[in-house]
């Protein structure tokens, strides 16, 4: 069976050439791109973020935080009701001290949910390296992997080389 898509990888040494390649590719209609960078680069993100919604990690944080707040109040109020400590004329359900517990649990659950969101959405952990990954991408090189229909590889290679890729493969 002939595969219907192929992948071309361009390795870049500079941010501006990478951005240039991305602009070219998008102008030519290639949108299925994976970009590897050693650091998050604002200019590259700006090109890629144009047709993508904001990361959904924040939704995880919101839900986690709210769960924490609610469970903090539920735990304290419920346990005070089942084991009432009547002391010093204070109400059994004393909200001000319970706010401390609810606050801490908001942060705790919110933080853990954010971690889960990052891991799930970023598809981590990744057991085997992606075929287009190169160890230089955690050092000082930038990679642009273009996923395109079979037969379009030639023109993609041309764009990558034209933009200034120091290496194009396959």
């Amino acid at each position, binding site marked *: 069976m002939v595969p219907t898509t192929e992948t071309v990888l361009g390795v870049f*040494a*500079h*941010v*501006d050439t990478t951005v240039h390649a991305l*602009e070219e590719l998008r102008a030519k209609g290639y949108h299925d*791109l*994976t*970009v*590897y*960078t*050693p*650091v*998050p*680069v604002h*200019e590259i*993100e700006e090109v890629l973020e144009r047709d993508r919604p904001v*990361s959904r990690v*924040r939704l995880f*944080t919101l839900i986690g935080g709210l769960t924490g707040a609610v469970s903090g109040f539920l*735990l*304290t109020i419920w*346990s*005070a009701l*089942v*084991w009432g*400590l009547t002391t010093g004329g*204070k109400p059994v359900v*004393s909200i001000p001290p*319970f706010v*401390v*517990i609810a*606050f*801490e*649990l908001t*942060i*705790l659950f*919110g*933080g*853990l949910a*954010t*971690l889960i*969101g*990052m*891991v799930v*959405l*970023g*598809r*981590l*952990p*990744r*057991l085997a*390296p*992606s075929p287009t990954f190169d*160890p*230089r*991408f*955690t*050092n*000082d090189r930038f990679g642009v992997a273009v996923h395109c229909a079979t037969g379009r590889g030639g023109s993609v290679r041309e764009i990558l080389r034209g933009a*200034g890729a120091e290496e194009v493969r396959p």
Partner: protein
Amino acid sequence: MSDSPPTSPTFADVNRDVLRTLGPPGNLYFAWMSVVALILAGGILAWTGQIWWGMGMAGKRVPQQWAMYITTFVFWIGIGHAGTLISAILYLFRARWRTSIYRAAEAMTIFAVLTAGLFPLIHAGRMWFAYFLVPYPNQRDLWPNFRSPLVWDVFAISTYLTISTVFFIVGLIPDIAAVRDASTGWRRRIYALLSLGWEGSDSQWRHYRRAYGLFAALATPLVLSVHSVVSWDFAMALVPGWHSTLFAPFFVDGAIFSGFAMVLVLVLPMRHFFKLHAYIQDKHLDAMGKLILVTGLVLTYFYVCEIFTTLYSGDEFDKASLFWKVTKSYAWALWTMYFCNCVAPLILFWKKARTSPVVLYVVSILVLIGMWFERFNIIVPSLGHAFYPWAWGIYVPTLTDTSIVIGSFAWFLLLFLGFIKVMPSLSIVEVKETLPPPLKDRVHGPHH
């Protein structure tokens, strides 16, 4: 960016220089490790003795049931504040000088909180019942008293430890990937596992960056709350010298003050021995010196407020407690604290002092001594001179509790020294982010 000096390190330099710190350690390192391990062994021996013979070994009796252990507990929790302050608050404020010290500071935070966490257990005596502190369903339907500041403390500190650890590990992931890609053999396999297979693809960075900002946003109120909660352990009680609404900001400020001192105590030798002068520059030391100076001045203001409030309130017990602290048995501790926390940092008004590693080191050590004594002065003399004359008393440290307190410093250093040899103690990614990005066309830069 294009006019940056040609000497500025490149991305590859950063990888090389940081990975160099993970090379095989020399004899000096092992000598240090041995000393630290010996001191720790002394501490463990003392603790074993305390478990065997009982809490009397720690010199604890009425009225000072809280003594060295709680002092040291609060001290370590305070140390643990600078890391999250640097990594969360300074991140939100986009203070770029934080990048070269934040990893060491975060590691310090976690190890400090781990050290602090031991003390309530050591202090409680029968630490195998520590799980009583945690709310869990049990056959007696018994729940913790959520009105007690001690239970708030359990929640605050375990949340703080969890969130700082998550923040720390998340920050480490891309760096571990860089270490993985530069190592071979079994090391590579371990780092590959720890890096979760990080590749730095755009979709990974996209969620990572968003998550990192959210962690910072969550950790910022957390760091301010933790020491406030610790301060309420005291402020909620009626003991003269404790019962004050000033305590929360007073504790938070002191924590940041001592935390920065500890960061310097750890980072200055790191910079010297790892030759990281290109990354931890004088301007970083200068910024840290300024923060110590500012928090020190704020702390002095709080001391003045504390004394003023006592004198102005007209409360006889408060005034008696203050008079006793300033002039009697523990006066030496109080004046040591005033000197170390209020006078010593004043030298940092001079820029020369702020950029001199020796001066900074000496000031930092004095600040750490001063801040340990601050907690001692809050706890021991206050308890020793509360309301009833028949309950007054003097506490004298014993060999057991002194060994355990000194051992805790060894435990902390052991963790830190171990860490700097297995993980990048300088953030590869964040240091690179502050460098000018590699551009082919240096004149025009990227498209804006």
